């Protein structure tokens, strides 16, 4: 365990603030709470000893660390404890599989219609539920059938001295290439040359599922692709909040990866909304937005809040004329990456999301904004309301979806 994480344990005064905010212990007795499985149970763990199985019911949302007034790295402690638990017991096959989105993506993209049919087919899902441990109701995104990388290879970005590297993550690559295209269009609209190096998974799902050695392998490979740009002073933008957070902090604090390359990549990485708002603060963001007469509730995902950058999406969306944004204050949608897909955890995940679903539903809106892909899929699953990345609203307001039509409104 890193000294940083380990040392923080001593600051715990057992005040229980983390317990009052944990969205998971509120809905299930199977997870006794972050303080209990973290700072308290930690003293029973030693080399090769991790007796507390309940830590597996921690989703890793990280809210405990955010609210702790004493700076205890509770979620990080629990994440490392979970890895130790599974190292001792062996990681179930299911968790090995769902933690490799790029393997699944490469496998199914060529036969996307078949895969999508299977994912929507009740009989197949029931089979996967019983044999594979993937809950038959869990939200499964559709494969796009083509990758964002393929689009990127054909795309000629604007020539400009202002340059940016785009880290799009697996969700964009295999499921939502359209989001990637919008990110690129918005950056290019603001005069950037966008470089999209070949890239694979950051290792986050493997980290969440307790396979640290495999996660580190993926992470190091990705760092290797991004580091040359970072060393040359290119900013890196990411639209996946959880994968961006992996590069910014979790690689160092949870996976204990070190080195100059990671440091450079961390320091260069920006969430896309953080990056765009930074431009605006320097007077460099184009504000030729056309009217978007919509009411859109906005949910900041847990991992987005982990960036500790506030909610830049709110400030950006406020620039769009006639767009009314409602800040939602529910803590978590419940999905936590792969957590809510699992048979034994699906109902917990839905119970966690209930408040958010209700708030979205009661807003009466037709569209909801949220930065993280798995959270968007969960929100759509829980509400039937279409969920978009905030960048999509900027893209539409810039008129990039229909460049010719300029409506007088």
């Amino acid at each position: 365990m890193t000294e940083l994480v380990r040392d923080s344990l001593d600051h715990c005064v057992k005040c229980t603030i983390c317990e009052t905010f944990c969205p998971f212990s509120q809905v299930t007795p199977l997870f006794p709470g972050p303080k209990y499985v973290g700072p308290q149970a930690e003293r029973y763990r030693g080399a090769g000893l991790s007796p507390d199985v309940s830590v597996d019911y921690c989703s890793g949302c990280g809210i405990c660390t955010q609210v702790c007034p004493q700076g205890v790295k509770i979620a990080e402690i629990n994440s490392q404890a979970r890895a130790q638990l599974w190292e001792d017991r062996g990681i179930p096959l299911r968790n090995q599989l769902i933690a490799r989105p790029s393997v699944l993506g490469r496998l199914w993209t060529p036969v996307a219609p078949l895969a999508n049919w299977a994912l929507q087919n009740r009989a197949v899902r029931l089979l996967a539920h019983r044999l594979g441990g993937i809950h038959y109701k869990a939200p499964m995104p559709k494969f796009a059938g083509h990758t964002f990388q393929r689009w990127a290879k054909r795309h000629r970005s604007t020539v400009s001295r202002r340059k940016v590297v785009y880290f799009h993550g697996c969700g964009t690559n295999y499921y939502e290439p359209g989001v990637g295209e919008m990110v690129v269009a918005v950056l290019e609209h603001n005069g950037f040359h966008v470089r999209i190096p070949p890239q694979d998974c950051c290792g986050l799902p493997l980290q969440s599922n307790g396979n640290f050695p495999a996660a580190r392998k993926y992470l190091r490979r990705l760092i290797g692709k991004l580091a040359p740009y970072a060393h040359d002073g290119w900013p890196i933008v990411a639209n996946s909040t959880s994968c961006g957070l992996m590069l910014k902090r979790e690689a160092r604090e949870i996976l204990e990866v070190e080195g100059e390359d990671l440091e450079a990549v961390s320091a260069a990485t920006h969430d896309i909304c953080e990056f765009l708002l930074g431009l605006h603060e320097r007077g460099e963001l184009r504000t030729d937005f056309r009217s978007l007469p919509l009411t859109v509730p906005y949910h900041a995902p847990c991992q987005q809040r982990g960036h500790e950058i506030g909610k830049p999406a709110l400030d950006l969306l406020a620039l769009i004329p006639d767009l009314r944004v409602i800040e939602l204050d529910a803590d978590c949608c419940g999905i936590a990456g792969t957590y809510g897909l699992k048979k034994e955890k699906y109902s917990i995940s839905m119970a966690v999301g209930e408040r958010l679903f209700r708030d979205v539903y009661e807003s009466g809106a037709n569209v909801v904004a949220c930065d993280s892909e798995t959270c968007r899929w969960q929100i759509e699953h829980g509400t039937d309301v279409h969920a978009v990345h905030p960048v999509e609203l900027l893209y539409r307001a810039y008129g990039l979806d229909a460049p010719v039509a300029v409506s007088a409104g």
Partner: protein
Amino acid sequence: MTYDTVVIGAGLAGLTAALRLAEEGRQVILVAKGVGSTHLAPATIDVLAVDDKSPAEALSKLPSEHPYARLPVEVVAASIEWFKARVAGYRGGLHENFLLPTAVGAVKPSAVVPESMAGGDLRGGGRFVFVGLGLKDFYPAYLAENLDQLADVSARGIELTLSHEGSLDLARRFEQADLREVIARQLNAQLEPDERVGFPAVLGLRHAAEVWRDLEERLERPVFEVATLPPSLPGMRLYEAMSEPLRKAGGRVIIGPTVVAAETSNGRVEGVVVEQAARSTTLRARSFMLATGGFASGGLQLDSRGRIRETVFDLPVAGAPDRPRFLPTYLEEQPLDRVGVAVDEQFRPTDVDGNPRYENLYAAGATLAGAAPWREGSGNGLSVATGYAAATILEGAQ
């Protein structure tokens, strides 16, 4: 973004100042490295814990170093009225303290209290029943035995057998009518007509007002809550009741990042440096409100060499004792109790010679020098009054 004001700290002082400013239309951002003391304290607004006397009267007799001495009593009263107009269901004022029972059966004077606690007022005596719910650290028999020794008070305890749960779980279960139904049925069989009923303060969270009223109806008598050890459900309700209108008024609330330093020039604070996941950034604003609390919450730090620091702006600290720093009489006032940031009439932290250190920096709450909240029973009162007053002055100065 350039904000009008950055408020540092999410305790009651920070929340009060931020809400007051946001309501005036100011662009406010509240940053805190974690959630504040609301979740740990009973959520009563203790102004000054004087028995059988009016807090208003006692306020006017405080020494000049006390933060309250910066404020006319009318301003303290106005802050309380402001608070009561925003957080529903608080009762009382500065004329006389409620006397509320604690979980160990001691008596706690408090000026303004949640309506769900007001029924436990011991002034005038009466017959009280305290109900245990299997909750750790809440023993009704022990509580009752201690209270029973007061004149005019008769008290007894009843322990109901519920499956063992923590206070958070109990609070959520109380929001469901079936638990209230079961409890009311069991109690109604055992209660005497003129007895008031006290529960540990776990009567609901989001729908607490409804839970409390429903229990009063079912039991046909005053029902009240007694503060428990943390987590404090009434404190969690208070946090929600303050932070929600703050967001609705356009204020930003960021919980997580630590404010580690300040950028200053020409006697002004230009920005505060905030640690994020991968780097630090500077939040710029026209003015700044320091509400980081004292030693317990990290607003002040004492190192192993005995040096005391204010952790964001490195402000001079007033009231630091030479030696000894601790006395073996643990329950008496300690030499470090009144250490803090000294402020001028406008709540601006001052240098040793009494001049404001920065013209646009203000301070409120437990970070201020001169008070010993836990001893004098002034914690939340001081936070509301100074948070309100400092925000009012800041607002006027802009």
